[in-house]
C-alpha cells in the first residue's frame, strides 16, 4: 500500500520547523509504523537527504521512548497502543498522515519528532519514590498487601512515562503521569509515611516545569497507551488537598504558596 506522510522537520531546538511531504509507495501491512519510517529513512540516506529523527528503543511498547502525533492523536489511532506497536494493517492504501512531535512548553523539541521529556524525571526526583536504603528492607512477606490493593497499585504503576497524556491534553498537563505515581505509592502500606509530602512535592515540581492544570477534558486517559485511568488525578488532588490542609512541611510553604 501507498502512504503519504507530512512530517514535522526541525533542525534543532532553536530553528523553526515545517511539514515536509514524503511518499512511501510500498508499505507492507505487517510492518510497524516505525518500521515504515525506517524504510523511509533508508531511502532518504541513499538519496543523500537527512533522515527523520525520532526516538524509539525497545519497540515492544514498554520503554516509553517512542511517541509522536499521527493526525493529531498521540501514538496514532489504535487505543492503548504505542506507535512502535502500531501496525500498518490499521491504515488504508493512499492514507495521508501528519506526523508531529509532542507539543508542550515543558517538552522542547530537540529535532524533528524528538522532544526533551526530562521534566518527567524531575517530577519523580521530587518525591516519586519510597525512601528505603539498600539493605534496610524488612522480610518481604512481613508486609501483607490485599490482592485488590496490589492490583490497583500495579494498574497505576504501569505508566511508561512516554508523555502522550501531556501531548493529548489541551492544557499540556502532566497530571495523569504525576497522579499515577502518587496513586501507585500512596495505595501501598510502604508508601504511607511519605504519602502527603510526596503529593505536595511532586505537584509543586510539576507546576514549576510549566505543565498546565487539569480541566477534566479526559484526553489523557483516552491517549494513554497503558490505559491509566483519570481517577489517578482525583486521587492526587485528594492527597494534595489533605496534605495542604494538614501536613505541609514548613520548608515547602513558600513553594506551595506560589502555586
Amino acid at each position, binding site marked *: 500500500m501507498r502512504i503519504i506522510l507530512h512530517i514535522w522537520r526541525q533542525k534543532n531546538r532553536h530553528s523553526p520547523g515545517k511539514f515536509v511531504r514524503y511518499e512511501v509507495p510500498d508499505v507492507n501491512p505487517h510492518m510497524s509504523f516505525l518500521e515504515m519510517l525506517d524504510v523511509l529513512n533508508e531511502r532518504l*540516506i541513499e538519496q543523500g537527504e*537527512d533522515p527523520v529523527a525520532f526516538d524509539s528503543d525497545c*519497540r*515492544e511498547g*514498554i520503554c516509553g521512548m517512542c511517541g509522536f502525533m499521527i493526525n493529531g492523536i498521540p501514538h496514532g489511532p489504535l487505543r492503548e497502543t504505542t506507535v512502535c506497536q502500531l501496525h500498518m494493517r490499521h491504515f488504508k492504501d493512499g492514507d495521508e498522515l501528519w506526523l508531529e512531535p509532542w507539543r508542550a512548553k515543558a517538552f522542547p523539541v530537540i529535532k524533528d519528532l524528538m522532544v526533551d521529556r526530562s521534566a518527567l524525571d524531575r517530577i*519523580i526526583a521530587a518525591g516519586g*519514590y519510597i525512601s528505603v536504603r539498600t539493605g534496610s*528492607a524488612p522480610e518481604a*512477606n512481613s508486609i501483607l498487601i*490485599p490482592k485488590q490493593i496490589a492490583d490497583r497499585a500495579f494498574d497505576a504503576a504501569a505508566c511508561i512515562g512516554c508523555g502522550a497524556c501531556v501531548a493529548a491534553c489541551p492544557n499540556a498537563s502532566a497530571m495523569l503521569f504525576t497522579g499515577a505515581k502518587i496513586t501507585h505509592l500512596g495505595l501501598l502500606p510502604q508508601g504511607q509515611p511519605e504519602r502527603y509530602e510526596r503529593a505536595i512535592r511532586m505537584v509543586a515540581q510539576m507546576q514549576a516545569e510549566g505543565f498546565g492544570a487539569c480541566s477534566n477534558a479526559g484526553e489523557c486517559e483516552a491517549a494513554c497507551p497503558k490505559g491509566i485511568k483519570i481517577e489517578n488525578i482525583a486521587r492526587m488532588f485528594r492527597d494534595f488537598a489533605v496534605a495542604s490542609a494538614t501536613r505541609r512541611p514548613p520548608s515547602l510553604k513558600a513553594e506551595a504558596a506560589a502555586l
Partner: protein
Amino acid sequence: MRLDPRVPSGPLEYRWTKCKNELQLVAPANRRKYTLIVVGSGLAGASAAATLGELGYNVRCFCYQDSPRRAHSIAAQGGINAAKNYQNDNDSVWRLFYDTIKGGDFRARESNVYRLAELSMNIIDQCVAQGVPFAREYGGLLANRSFGGALVSRTFYARGQTGQQLLLGAYQALQRQVAAGTVQMFPRTEMLDLIVVDGKARGIVTRDLETGKIDVHLGHAVILATGGYANVFYLSTNAKNSNATAIWRSYKRGALFANPCFTQIHPTCIPATGEYQSKLTLMSESLRNDGRIWVPKNKGDKRPPNEIPEEERDYYLERMYPSYGNLAPRDIASRAAKRVCDEGRGVGPTGYGVYLDFSDAIKRLGRKVIEDRYGNLFEMYERITGENPYEVPMRIYPASHYTMGGLWVDYHLMSTIPGLFVIGEANFSDHGANRLGASALMQGLADGYFIVPYTVPHYLATTKLDPVPEDHPACREAVENVRSMIKRLLSINGRRTVDSFHRQLGQIVWEYCGMSRNAQGLKKALELIPALREEFWENVRVPGSDEEVNQSLEKAGRVADFLELAELMCLDALAREESCGAHFREEYQTPDGEALRDDERFCHVAAWEYQGPDRPPVRHQEELVFEFVTPTVRSYK
C-alpha cells in the same frame, strides 16, 4: 597472563561472608571525595548508582536513552527468582544455586553462583520495600510461579511486566539520589572510550547525543552496566539501540572478553515476517507453564491448526523430555524447535514457527484464569500479529535474546583492568553457558544493590589513586581516538546505509554462529565477517555532521564494533570443541542429538585478550573447579 578470580576459600555457604569480612571500608567523610562513573542505567547500573550515591560517593551515571527509566531491563516480562521457599516445595539457596549452575551446563564459578542464590532473598525484600507491586495471593502474601529449568515455584512476578516494575523501583531510588545531589545523571550521552592511566581505569570519553560534544569524565573507578551484545544478530529481542560499544572499547583497552560465543537463543518469540523487520518480540517463557508446544506430525501439513486432529500433532517437547516437558530449558527448547522446522514441519507462512497452544489450559482453567495470568501478553501478541491467541494457537520461533558472555570479572566483579568493574549482563559471570529464565533480573540487582557497593570501596581503600588532570596524555589520546573514528565514519560517504551492513552481519552470525555451529561454517563466517567489515569502512554512508543529533552516526559506531565482536564470537565458538548449554557444536552431540560436553578439555572460561588491529587475540583460560557439585550430563528427560 594468569587470571586470578579472587575466589575465597572454605565452605561454600561462608565464602561471601568471609569475603565481606575481609573487605576494607572507606570512612563516611572520605566517600564524597571519590567520584565513581556508572555507565548504563538498567537494573544493574541504576541499583549500583543509587546505592553508591546513598553511601555518600559522588556518582556520575550515563545512559544513551533520554531517561534512565528506558533501559532495556524494562522489557523483561516473566519474573525474578528467589530462594524464599514461600511455596513450601522444598526450595533452598542450595537448590537455586544447583539449578543455576546445572542450567549453565557447569560452565560458571561455583562461588559466584552460590552468592547470587544467597542474595536473591535480599533482592525481593528490597524491591517490596520500594513499592514494587508484585503479584499477590488473596491473603496478601506474595505469589510465585514456576519457570523453565526448575521443579519448584520460586519466581516472583508483576503480571508480564516484572522487569518494568523492578527497573522503576531502581530508577526511583536513583532519582531520589539525583535529588539528594549524590548522583549526577547524564542522559542522551554515550560512552565511546575508556581512559586508562597507569594501568587503572580512571575515566571515560563520552559524546552528547544531542549536541555531539565530546567530553572527558574522570573518576576513581568505572562501573560498566551496559548490557549484552545480542544485537550482533541484528534481529534480536534487545532494544533497537542496545549495543556493545562500551564493553568492546574497554576490551580494546585491555579488559579480557570471556566466553563471547555463549549467546542465548530464546525459544518463544514472535516469528519474523519480512526484510523490514527491525526487531523480534519475546513472548514470556512463563507462557510455557500453560501453553503446549506442537507441530504437525506430517511434513508440509498446511491445514489450519484447529483442523489438525489430536493424533496428528506432535507435542515434541513433552515427547522428548517427559519430566520437564514444555518447561525444558531455553537452549534445549530452541534447538528442538529448529530441528522440527528443519525437518519441514514448521508452521506459518515462512515455515519457521511452531504452535504454542492454550486451548487445553483454557478448557481446564477457564478463559478468566488465563486472562489473569497472561492477559497483557496475549494482547501484545494480537497487536503484532493480528491473530487472537484465545482462539488460534500462537506461532513462535527462537530468537537471539541474551548473552552469557561478556567482560571477564573476578569475584569482586572487577575486570582485568584495575578499577574497571563490570556488572549485569555486560559481564560473563554467573550463567555459564546458558541462563535460566528469571535469573537475569536477579543477577543485575544482586550485582548493583549488594555486591559492587562492597567491593568498589575495597578497591578505593586499597589502591593509590593520584589525581588525573583533564589534559593528561591518556585523556588526550582517548579523545583523539574517538574524534578520528567519528571523522572517518563521516568522510567515507559510500553507497550503503549502516543498517544494510548490520542486517547482513546479522544474517552471517545467525547462520553460522547461532543456534547450532560447526567448524566449517564458523571458518566460513571468519572469512565473510572481515570482508564485510572491510566493505563497511569503504562503502558506508553516514549522512550529516557530528555536531547535531545524528542517529546514523550513532549506529555506525555501534555497527563498527559489532563487526569486530562477531569475529571474536566465531573464533571462540571454533576454539570451544565441545557442546555446552547454548553453545551447540554439531560435531559434538550424543546419538540422540543432545549437547556433549568435554570436561577434560573445556572445563574452563575462555578469556580473550586484544592484541591490536593486526594481530589475532590471545585466548587465556580460567580453569573451573567444582568442589561442591559434580558436573553431570544435564538431563531434563
